C-alpha cells in the first residue's frame, strides 16, 4: 500500500511541476522537458502499480524488468529490427509511396481518370487492408518480401488520395498565371503544382509512416522466418517471456516515433511557407 501511496504523491507532484513549467515558461527546453516528465511519470506509475499490486509478471512486467530484458538482448533486437523495419517496412514504404506518387502524377493529366480513381481510392483506403495480410503472405512467401508487399498495399491508397488531392490544391488564379507565362505542363507541374501539393503529400507520408511498421509486424503473424519483431512478439508471448515482448514493443514504438519524427522534420524544411508551419518556433 505504501508503494501505491508514494506513486500517487509522485504523480501529483510531477503533474503540478508540469503545469507550473508550462504556464510559466515557453522556451524550447520546456517544450522538451514537459513531455519527458510526463513520460517518466507514466513509467514510474506503471512500475509502482505493478509492484504495489504485485501483478504477475506474465501479465504485465514492470518497466525495470523490461529494461533489463532490453539491455540483455540487444543483438536479437537489432536482428529483428533489421528484418522487420529496414527490410520489410522501409522497403515497402518507399515502393508503396513512390508508386502512389507516380500513379498520382500520371493520372493528373486525365480528369476522367481522376474523377474515377479518387472515390475508389478513398473507398479502398478505408478498407481493413490488414485482412489481406494472410493472402499476401501466401503469394509472396515467408521472408521479408511478403511483409514489404503488405506495407505497399497499406500505404498505397492513403498516399495516392493525398497526392491527387494535393495536385489540385493550386487555385485557378495561380494556374492561369502559369498559363500567361506560357509554362509547359512539366514546368507548371514542377514550379507550381508540386510545391503546392507538398503539405498534402507530407500528410500522406506521415499517415503511411505509422501504417508501415504496423503492417510489417502484422504480416509476420501469418508466417515468417525465425527472426523479426512480429515473430519475436508472438513467440515470446507463447513462452511467457513478457519482458522480451515489451522490449520488442518498445523498439517498435521508438522506431515508429523516430520515423514519424523524421518525416515531420523534412516536412518542416520543405513546407516552411505553409500557414500550419508558420508561427512555430
Amino acid at each position, binding site marked *: 500500500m505504501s508503494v501505491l501511496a508514494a506513486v500517487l504523491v509522485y504523480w501529483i507532484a510531477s*503533474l503540478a511541476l*508540469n*503545469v507550473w*513549467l*508550462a*504556464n510559466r515558461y515557453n522556451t524550447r527546453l*520546456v*517544450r522538451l522537458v*514537459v*513531455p519527458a*516528465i*510526463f*513520460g517518466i511519470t*507514466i513509467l514510474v506509475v506503471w512500475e509502482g502499480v505493478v509492484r504495489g499490486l504485485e501483478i504477475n509478471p506474465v*501479465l*504485465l512486467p514492470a518497466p525495470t524488468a523490461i529494461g533489463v530484458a532490453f539491455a540483455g538482448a540487444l543483438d536479437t533486437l537489432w536482428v529483428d529490427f533489421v528484418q522487420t523495419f529496414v527490410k520489410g517496412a522501409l522497403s515497402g514504404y518507399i515502393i508503396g509511396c513512390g508508386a502512389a506518387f507516380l500513379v498520382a502524377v500520371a493520372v493528373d493529366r486525365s480528369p*476522367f*481518370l*481522376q*474523377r*474515377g*480513381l479518387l*472515390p*475508389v481510392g478513398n*473507398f479502398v*483506403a*478505408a*478498407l*481493413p487492408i*490488414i*485482412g*489481406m495480410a*494472410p*493472402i499476401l503472405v*501466401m*503469394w509472396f512467401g515467408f521472408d521479408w518480401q511478403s511483409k514489404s508487399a503488405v506495407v505497399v498495399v497499406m500505404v498505397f491508397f492513403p498516399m495516392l488520395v493525398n497526392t491527387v488531392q494535393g495536385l489540385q490544391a493550386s487555385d485557378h488564379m495561380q494556374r492561369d498565371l502559369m498559363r500567361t507565362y506560357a509554362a509547359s505542363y512539366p514546368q507548371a507541374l514542377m514550379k507550381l503544382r508540386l510545391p503546392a501539393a507538398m503539405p498534402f503529400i507530407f500528410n500522406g507520408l506521415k499517415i503511411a509512416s*505509422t501504417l508501415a*511498421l*504496423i503492417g510489417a*509486424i*502484422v504480416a509476420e*503473424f*501469418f508466417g515468417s522466418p525465425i527472426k523479426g*519483431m*512480429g515473430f519475436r*512478439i*508472438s513467440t515470446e*508471448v507463447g513462452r511467457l517471456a*513478457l519482458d522480451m*515482448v515489451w522490449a*520488442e*514493443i518498445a523498439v*517498435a*514504438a521508438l*522506431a*515508429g*516515433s523516430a*520515423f*514519424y519524427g523524421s518525416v515531420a522534420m523534412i516536412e518542416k524544411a520543405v513546407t516552411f511557407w505553409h500557414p500550419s508551419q508558420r508561427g512555430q518556433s
Partner: protein
Amino acid sequence: MRSILPILTVVLAIFVLWYGMAVKLNAPWAYDKAKRADVTLSFSEMVADTWSQNKPRLPAPHQVTREIWKTTGAMIAKGKAFSKRSLIYHGWVTLSATSLGFVMGTMLGIFLAIGIVHNRAMDMSVMPWVIASQTIPILAIAPMVIVVLNAIGISGLIPKAVISMYLSFFPVVVGMVKGLRAPDHMQLDQMATWHASRVQVFWKLRLPSSMPYLFTSLKIAMAASLIGAIVGELPTGAQGGLGARMLTGSYYGQTIQIWSALISAAVLAAVLVGIIGIIQNITLKRMGMAR
C-alpha cells in the same frame, strides 16, 4: 453524377485485372493437377479451371459473390439470417464491437482535444505521447489486452471495443485539436470584446467551427475502429466476427471465405463511413457551413 462513368470505368478495370490475376496466380496449381492426372490442358480449359478451383490462391469475383450470397441472401431466404454460418451474424458481431469502440474513441478523442486546447500543460505533455501511442503495434498487444481485461473480469465485447477505441481516438484528437483552433484571431478578439467567458467561447465559437474537422476525422476514426475490431477478433479466434472468419479461412486455406469476409468488411466500412457522410451533409447544411 458526372463521376459515375469514370468510377464505373475504374471499377471495371479492377475487375478485368482481378480476373487476369486469378488466371496468372491459379495457373500453376491447375497445371500441377493436370500433370499428376496425366492430361494436357488447352488454354481455355486452363482458364476455366483457374476460375473454378476449390481453394484458389486468388478466387475469381464470381466465386466470391456466390459465397457471399450463400452466406447472406440465401440465409435470409431460409430464415436463418442469424445462424453462425451466416455472414450477417458475423458482420453484426463485428459491427457491435466497432460501434462501441467508435463511440468510446470519439468521446476520449474529443475530451483529450478539449483539454489540449485549453490547457498548455496538457498540450505540451500529452500530444507527443498521443502520436507515440499509435506507433505501438496494436495487434501485438491485442491478445494481452484481452487477457489483462479478462483478469479484472471484463470479457466479451468490451476488450475488442477497447482495441477499436485505441485506434480510433487518434484521428479524432488530431482533427479536433486542429478544429478547435480553427477560429482566427479576429474571431477570438470579437468574442473578447463581447466579454465572453471561456465556456461561452467554446460553445459559441470553437465547437461550431470545429465541425467540418470533426466529421472528416470521424470518417477516419470509423474506418480505424473497424480495423481495430477485426484485429481484436483475429487473436481471440473462434468467437465470431469477420476477423474470426478471416482467421479460420486462413487456417483452413479457404481463400474464398477470406475474400468474402474481406469484401463484407469493405461494404460494412463503406456503409458506416457513408452514414457519417450523410450526417455531415445534413449538419453542415443546417449550420450554413456546407460547401
